[in-house]
């Protein structure tokens, strides 16, 4: 099982999904029209490390986080 968390202003509860890579996650999340804009502007972290490509293999227990645009300070 992979846990997917939506951070900051993305108002969506965490998901648990059975997937083996980020391409599968993209396909699942793109079905949710409310997420469309967030998918375009959010960064993706796997186990708290930001990734910049979908070519990432996932293992049971991995955590994925979506990080929308930031503004600290």
């Amino acid at each position, binding site marked *: 099982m992979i846990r997917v968390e939506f*951070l*900051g*202003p993305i108002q969506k509860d965490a998901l648990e999904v059975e997937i083996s890579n*980020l*391409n599968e*996650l*993209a*396909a699942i*999340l*793109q079905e949710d029209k409310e997420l*469309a804009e967030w*998918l*375009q*502007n*959010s*960064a*993706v*972290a796997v186990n*708290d*490390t*930001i*990734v*910049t*490509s*979908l070519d990432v293999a996932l293992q049971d227990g991995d955590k994925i*986080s*979506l*990080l*929308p*645009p*930031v*503004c*600290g*300070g």
Partner: protein
Amino acid sequence: MLSLYDGALNVPKILKEWYEEEAQSNYGAYLPFVGTVRSEDGIEGLSFDIYEPILESWFEAWQQKAKAKGAIIKMAHSRGDVLLHESSYIAAVFSPKRRVALEFIDAFVEDFKASAPIWKYDLKDGKRIYAKDRSTAIEGSGILGAKQ
């Protein structure tokens, strides 16, 4: 050192503590940047969400860059609500010489704005409104939105 506080920062206390912590470290320059909530657009204050695991690894990477130049950085940030004229952010560089401090604080604060996993909300009319227009997509964003 990265310190997170609920609500506004006690700026004089933090600046004093940091100064005293490094009093014997033989740094010639101490350069803190303090960010304070401005009154604009009718807001009552700001509010912040922080994702700590990634903030900590981002900060640690900068600490290593500082170390390579003989410097150190310290940072404090607020969680939750911070009202007008209160402060939510301090970042400081200590370094042996001034040029490193002056260049480092600029690069650090700019990358903080672009990359640190912190989300800002305006407090307005009793609501908490994501400051979307002032926010920056982290480098590499959008990969999940690309058509397969």
